[in-house]
């Protein structure tokens, strides 16, 4: 708690936390704030520029863009959490055996090298295609493709800590290896993991909205930000606001996360300061 307080004392971290809180409020209550439905079409009102009646204008089906972006916030926030959860879970399953027990260490690291050698978002694209379209597809696909990142991180943490005298003492005291790994070593790596998880959340939001932009994952009429950007490409000339606001929403969210992540890193992980 004390540490959290210290972190929030930094103005940049506070700004990040406030930004994220706003996005969270939008995600939870955005649809209630607005008199419009995110789905109901009204072709008389299509492609209107921003005005007092429609803050962000309307889209090609006459839907209020602000309402759609507010509702879409929940997809992007979920994308951050779900994919980091999947990545962390996979990372623990591979990283702990490899770093602490040294079981199949070489094989696991080779597997990570192979996965990391896949160029860009192609692996996530292939996984999305196998899973079929759906809201959660890109989140899980991005999570799976980030497993090696977490696995390496967790392995490195365990490798460093397993040699410390307190682990020796635990062994002498008769603690079971699983207990030593999960109760005694894992909490010591938590800082590094937390920092990386926060920063990966920003990457995950960008990547999963990019997948939706490419037509995988969320499908129209879901107000997912990446899918909305894709739809905007047809209206560059008539309605540029369609391309501006969804992207701005992604960027603001990622800025909030990165501000928080950088502050966490400076606080918890002074060696990685950059």
């Amino acid at each position, binding site marked *: 708690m004390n540490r959290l307080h210290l972190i929030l004392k930094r103005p940049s971290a506070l700004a990040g936390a406030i930004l994220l809180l706003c996005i969270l409020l939008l995600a939870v209550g955005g649809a209630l704030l607005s008199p419009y439905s995110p789905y109901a079409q009204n072709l008389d009102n299509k492609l209107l520029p921003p005005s007092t009646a429609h803050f962000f204008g309307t889209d090609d089906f006459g839907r209020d863009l602000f309402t759609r972006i507010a509702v879409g916030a929940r997809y992007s926030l979920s994308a951050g959490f779900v994919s980091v959860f999947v990545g962390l879970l996979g990372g623990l399953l591979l990283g702990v055996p490899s770093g602490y027990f040294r079981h199949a260490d070489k094989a696991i690291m080779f597997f990570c090298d192979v996965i990391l050698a*896949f*160029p860009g*978002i*192609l692996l996530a694209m292939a996984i999305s295609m196998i899973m079929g379209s759906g809201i959660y597809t890109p989140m899980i696909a991005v999570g799976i493709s980030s497993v090696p990142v977490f696995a390496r991180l967790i392995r490195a943490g365990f490798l460093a800590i397993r040699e410390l005298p307190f682990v020796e003492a635990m062994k002498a005291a008769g603690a079971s290896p699983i207990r030593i790994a999960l109760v005694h070593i894992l909490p010591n790596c938590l800082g590094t993991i937390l920092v990386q998880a926060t920063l990966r959340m920003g990457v995950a939001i960008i990547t999963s909205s*990019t997948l939706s*932009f*490419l037509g995988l994952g969320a499908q129209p009429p879901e107000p997912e930000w990446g899918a909305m950007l894709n739809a905007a490409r047809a209206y560059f000339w008539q309605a540029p606001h369609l*391309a501006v606001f969804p992207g701005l929403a992604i960027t603001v969210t990622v800025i909030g996360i990165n501000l928080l992540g950088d502050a966490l890193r400076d606080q918890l992980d002074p060696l990685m300061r950059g």
Partner: protein
Amino acid sequence: MLRYLMKKLLLTAGVILGVATCSFFLLRALPGDPAQALAGPQATLSDIENVRKAFRLDEPISRQFATYIGNLLRGDLGYSFRTRRPVMTEILARWPNTLRLSLFSMLVAILIGVPSGIFAAGRHGTSLDALSMTGAFLGVSIPSVWLGMLLILLFSVKLKWLPFYGMDSLANYVLPGLTLGLGVAANIARLTRVSMLEVLGSDYVKTARGKGASETRTVYIHALRNAAIPIVTIIGLQLGALLGGQVVTETLFSWPGLGRMIVDSLSSRDYMMVQGGILVLAVTFALINLLTDLLYALLDPRVRIG
């Protein structure tokens, strides 16, 4: 040195074989029948069967895999289902476009990133430092898809200065180059600043100053040389990331490169083209990493590999 190189090369070959295996089985797990996609919507069942036989898609997966790897080891990437031309020919037609765009973007990134990192480090703690680092922070937070769309909106739609499709002149490279390059520039700027700050605080730089070397000489001759080591490493790593980033940028700018070819082939289930494209990108990525490793040892005499 030679031993290290051999070991590294062997591992790289293993990773590439792993990528080939993974992409083969991932693609086979995709829903949708490539034979049907190829034969077209009006095809009869026997047409589809014929296509399946012609591309040997009727054979068991294990046999297909053995054929694929066997051919691969002889340098044969197979034939495209769709165009019926050798995958190698198709790749060679697009590969230069991807490479040119990557190198152009990297040039943009280095020209923006390195000077602004040095600039910020030299004015450490001032508002100019804060300003350039805010810029870099924005650069790493902005999705490249959106950055590309904003650039198109501003420079093509509004100002009508630059084209956003085609690749006939240097002007065509500017927007996709900036889309790919600005994020990388931000990463380079952040790292350049940190490593310059570290070096500028070291004793030997103080000595150089004490001997009366000019500020320019101190920064560019004495400090930059040592700060360059991590910078070169990140440039190598980011060049790999740039190749991966092509997938999105090429789609956005209709760039006839390898990334877009893979995306198109993925949706038409042209397995051989996807496998070949991924493999070529992975090999390039691995070679860049290897070169970065070697360059690192060359630049820093303290690093002795072997």
